[in-house]
């Protein structure tokens, strides 16, 4: 499929200058409803009985378009599925659903569909898509000197066997990434280099085959602050000179601001907000995006530590929350966000973290240790002294202590039951991406159907 790539030192004749509006440029990558689900390996008996133990939806319906020369930032915390999305594009994670159309341009033979490609077919695609890893030290073979490592793509893809030609190209790539004087670096081993130099070598290896798309997975987050800017600048230069298109995977909205044309915020396998970088930074719509922006440490001592931040951490993707996955942490969550039985546990734990030891013991005596409540829109809170109404009283106590707790917005009714209290929650609604101006947001706060329910809440 691919022909021999151009020499590195000859600039790509990229027709699309940066002046061309993004929407008019050819599409390099079109991802529609991408799914990467991993089957869970159950216990011994599950496997013996052939029972399925479910699956982890690492990526669950992700769509985006990447045009030539564009930089798309895929931003999220660990467990958001951003790295899995990146790996799926190279066939390093299995694509279990959706379509991925990759068009590297005429010199690579036109558009191809990546879904359903087998490993040998993917090997050819990996000439046109290159991957840069987070840890430059670990992504270079410790037993290979730099010249061999950088030249290796040429050998792998049988581009040339001519030693003089290989040497010329390696030198050109070293020069381009700033590993100069070249002779000083050719025969060094990764262990001899600093982090920034190693990442330069990784970039040299990545541009060896003149790829169309470069997937960069946190390329600067392991580097020192003073080196990050250098590597980002180098990547911008490479993009300009070689006509590259970037998928920039990161957890850091500060570097993404500098680097990306488009930002996609991911949470638990889905995109929750996507749009032009300028809009996202100027007016973030999703509470998660706002929190991420608020959490970035600023070198400004007048700023206090941000307080009103989401509690807890990214939940287990094997058992995602109902409705909006972010609702248990969301400071602005309200009725339709998918409140459920498991949130009662979180509420109790939060309560017991705050109260005194004696009160905790007393209250635990009423409802017992939180058991793993099943996912569902109804919860039965047990009452050890059945019929005493102590559990209901405890719930009232918790509510009066913090009436603004978003949890209560999701509770439809609290009914006494034999043996405890039954909590009914509002029907969970899965938020879908909706157009809000030039961005797309998956949040009920921006859904006119729920506008009446949404209480004005302060978010960071």
């Amino acid at each position: 499929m691919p022909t021999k790539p151009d020499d590195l030192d000859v600039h790509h004749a990229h027709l699309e200058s940066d002046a061309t509006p993004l929407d008019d440029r050819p599409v390099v990558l079109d991802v529609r409803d991408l799914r990467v689900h991993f089957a869970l390996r159950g216990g011994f008996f599950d496997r013996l009985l052939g029972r399925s133990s479910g699956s982890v939806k690492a990526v669950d319906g992700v769509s985006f378009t990447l045009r030539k020369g564009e930089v798309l930032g895929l931003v999220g915390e660990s467990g958001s599925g951003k790295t899995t999305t990146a790996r799926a594009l190279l066939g390093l994670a299995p694509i279990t659903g959706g379509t991925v159309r990759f068009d590297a341009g005429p010199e690579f033979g036109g558009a191809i569909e990546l879904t359903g490609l087998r490993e040998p077919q993917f090997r050819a695609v990996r000439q046109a898509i290159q991957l840069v890893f987070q840890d430059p030290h670990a992504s270079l073979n410790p037993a290979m000197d730099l010249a061999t490592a950088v030249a290796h793509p040429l050998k792998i893809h049988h581009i040339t066997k001519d030693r003089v030609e290989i040497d010329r190209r390696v030198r050109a790539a070293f020069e381009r990434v700033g590993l100069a004087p070249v002779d000083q670096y050719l025969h060094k081993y990764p262990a001899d280099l600093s982090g920034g130099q190693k990442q330069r070598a990784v970039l040299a290896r990545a541009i060896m085959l003149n790829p169309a798309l470069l997937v960069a997975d946190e390329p600067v987050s392991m580097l020192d602050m003073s080196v990050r800017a250098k590597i980002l600048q180098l990547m911008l230069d490479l993009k300009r000179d070689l006509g590259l298109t970037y998928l920039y995977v990161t957890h850091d909205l500060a570097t993404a601001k500098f680097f990306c044309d488009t930002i996609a915020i991911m949470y638990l396998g889905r995109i929750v907000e996507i749009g032009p970088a300028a809009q996202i930074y100027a007016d973030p719509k999703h509470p998660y995006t706002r929190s991420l922006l608020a959490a970035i440490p600023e070198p400004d001592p007048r700023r206090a530590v941000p307080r009103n931040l989401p509690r807890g951490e990214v939940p287990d993707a094997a058992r995602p929350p109902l409705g909006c996955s972010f609702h248990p942490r969301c400071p602005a969550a309200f009725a339709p966000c998918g409140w459920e039985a498991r949130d009662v546990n979180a509420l109790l734990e939060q309560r017991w973290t705050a109260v005194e030891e004696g009160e905790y013991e007393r209250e635990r005596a009423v409802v017992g240790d939180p058991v793993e409540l099943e996912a569902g829109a109804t919860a039965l809170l047990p009452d050890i002294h059945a019929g005493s109404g102590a559990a209901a009283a405890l719930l009232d106590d918790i509510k009066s202590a913090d009436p603004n707790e978003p949890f209560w917005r999701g509770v439809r009714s609290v009914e006494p039951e034999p043996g405890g209290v039954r909590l009914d929650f509002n029907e969970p609604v899965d938020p879908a991406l909706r157009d809000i101006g030039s961005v797309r947001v998956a949040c009920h706060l921006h859904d006119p159907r729920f506008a009446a329910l949404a209480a004005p809440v302060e978010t960071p």
Partner: protein
Amino acid sequence: MAAPVISVRDLRVWYGTERGPVRAVDGVSFDVRAGETLGLVGESGCGKSTLGRGILGLLPTGSAVDGSVRFRDRELVGVKQSDMRETRGAELGLIFQEPMTRLDPLMRISEHFAETLRAHEPELSSAEIDARSIDTLRRMGIPPTRFRHYPHEFSGGMRQRIMIALALVLNPAFVVADEPTTALDVLVEAQILSILADLKRNFDTSLLLITHNLGIVAEACERVAVMYAGRIVEEGDARQVFSDPSHPYTRELLRSTISLSTTALHYIPGSPPDLVDPPSGCHFHPRCPSAMQVCSRLDPVEVRAASGQRVSCWLHGPDELIPPGGTAPLQRQELASADEA
């Protein structure tokens, strides 16, 4: 002003390699007062972790230490390892970067606490141990219901909270936190930082927070010490240092930090020096945009800048020590890009 809890004077920590001694810490002095948080910032390889561990007496074999570390009128340099172990934990604590690897996967959280408390306060009863552990955990935001869980049942942020609780349960007077949030996500990092920022209120503990991120220092620390190539080049009130940096390195480091308010990419040319053979004079002179003739020849002398911070830079004098013609700009050969990081 409160008396210093830890007082470090002219501390040197060198360790051996095949290529010769690495001058990881080379003449460092600072104080940390009671209830104060001092941020120690620098790039990787500047010796900041070695300094943090050196204070606690945790150093690899073959390293050499001299100078003075006084902890509440006790000298810690030269103390026997066995005596140091007593002091560590009970009075001096350490919080590591990687919480996953520091908890024994086969021990419940309750057992971790019991072990720590029993080792240092053998007179405590089981009930007291539990009460104190749960109380400390609660203040770190860990629910008491999780007290008997195993480490793998917690998320990364929770494990770091547990590590902090383990370091604080003995009420140490001084804690070194070495990049405590580097392995964590942004939101979790912010949670941990707010816990660290509240340490003073909750525990009356002094903290040395080691980090490479100036943003973290700005949010969590009252004072900041900037370290470059084994030496502290500037130290002072965080607000003062950030708003009016005296040392060119501090200034350049601040400018090259990428944050939301960054408007242009900026970086310091070159890379940090090899600590086996650091440059003569001021170690920063080969990369310094304001370097003068004197900087390459004489070690800078520490002075107190007009704005109050301590700074080691010839730009701030003392003028009487600068030889004639020393203030002329330093003529440098073009930086080979080989030296770029």
